[in-house]
């Protein structure tokens, strides 16, 4: 009986150690390997967003179901489509989106396993600013018995302050860490930060 318990403890420790190293390795490699795709997604999203503010979600595991949030001054519309449905195109036309660009954005997001892209507003010295927020769901982060994890990226327009351990700081109070959606973010480069989170939005 004792040996069985020891065996289970050893397995759990090995599993824990492997999952930690996996996540660390993933964050180190993922951005450098996918930088071009992620930056392309970001710039295409910004181009589309400037004409029609929106957020896009791929909310099933096959990344084929789309949640589209269209923001107007007075109201926010939330639609749910399958990528193969004609209603998606009809809706894009109705709200005067560039359908070709939008389809390319969706395709790129599917290729890079992006589940969510949005523009998050924040205030610095009472001035409104934006950052592009992208979440990635990668198989390497989500295995059997592992809790769901997302690689979330924050793209800022200006360089951001970080502490010596690479943690994102509040630019108005450099003694404080800055949280985004309640999560601590770390440095990828001066304008891009990442976090491993349990939620994609």
């Amino acid at each position: 009986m004792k040996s069985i318990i020891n065996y289970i403890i050893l397995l759990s420790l090995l599993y824990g150690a492997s999952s930690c190293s996996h996540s660390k390795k993933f964050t180190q490699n993922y951005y450098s390997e996918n930088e071009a795709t992620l930056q392309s997604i970001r710039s295409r999203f910004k181009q589309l967003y400037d004409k029609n503010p929106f957020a896009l979600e791929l909310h099933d595991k096959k990344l084929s179901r789309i949640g589209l949030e269209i923001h107007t001054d007075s109201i926010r519309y939330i639609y749910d489509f399958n990528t193969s449905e004609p209603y998606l195109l009809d809706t894009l036309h109705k709200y005067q989106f560039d359908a070709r660009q939008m389809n390319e954005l969706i395709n790129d997001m599917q290729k890079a396993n992006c589940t969510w892209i949005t523009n998050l507003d924040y205030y610095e010295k009472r001035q409104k600013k934006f950052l592009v927020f992208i979440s990635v769901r990668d198989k390497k982060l989500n295995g059997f018995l592992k809790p769901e994890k997302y690689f979330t990226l924050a793209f800022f327009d200006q360089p951001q302050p970080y502490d010596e351990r690479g943690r994102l700081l509040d630019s108005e109070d450099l003694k404080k860490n800055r949280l985004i959606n309640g999560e601590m973010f770390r440095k990828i480069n001066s304008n891009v930060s990442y976090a491993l989170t349990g939620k994609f939005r």
Partner: protein
Amino acid sequence: MTPYCLTRKLRYHLLILFRYHTIIILVILLTCFDPDTKASPSGNPSDSNQISTPQQAIAFLDSLQRLDSSKYWPNADPVLFLENLRVFATTPFKFYEGKGTNFCSYFALTYIPLSYDPLGFSRFMIELYQKGKARMGKVVLKPGVAVRKEAGLLKYKGPLDISPAGQIWFLTLADHFKGYLNIFNLRFHDGDENTLWASTNFAKFNRMLRKLFPVKVHAKGADLVRPWVDDLPAYLEKKLRDGPIFLYLNNRLLYKKTHVVTRFGIPTHFVLLLDISWSENKMINITYWDYGKMTLQRVDEEFLRKIVFGITDYTIKKK
């Protein structure tokens, strides 16, 4: 019916009662049963119930000209505070609860004072700012020191960052009203706007409505049990004929945040339902107010049934 059948049926019911007694007790405890929660035949408020107008509120705020800094709210800028109140009075739907906070219930109920009595709300906020306490409805709200110091300092919550008035209002309500969800975190600490300290269960929400505003409240549903309504869209449609209503929703389904499928859903989000209508392909358009915006979402009936745990409608009491 033979006595034998009756006995068998009785035994069956007793067995059910014995097996599920914990759940039944829990449901009774969580459900908001209150003698004051009977539906009024007159239904919800209409414009005739308007107590004051936005113009009256603006005239009152203009008459103040300027506001001195408050010793009770050291971090709330008086100029910005006054400006916030003007915006609340003229464009109530721009009121914002803040990103990632648990202020959705306080946000939803703010529809009532901003819509029916913007002058009363402005007066209350000015008094709260100047004296550190003020009466609204049946309660005197006197927030604690920790809360008063924090108001004006909440950051990275979107437009709530530049709304000291919104921060004061939300923190004051969260500090005053407590439900069973708040038991383990009763005192405010840094960051508690995102924790159980600020959260609201269904009974607490209805209690807040009754204590703060001159309303008769009719609530259906509970924290863990969905309301027993045969035809939910028709029921909501009927209630909406008399004015907006409040819904207590499962936010995990409304705004999907993970790919994990959970069978056990619990409600965590309050919204103000403004409209419901049938769309093509048996879909339903629901229009609700949350996160500072009106939202129109297309859902199917099954989804709607799954997300709704509480329905609250109200009637403004005539003086």
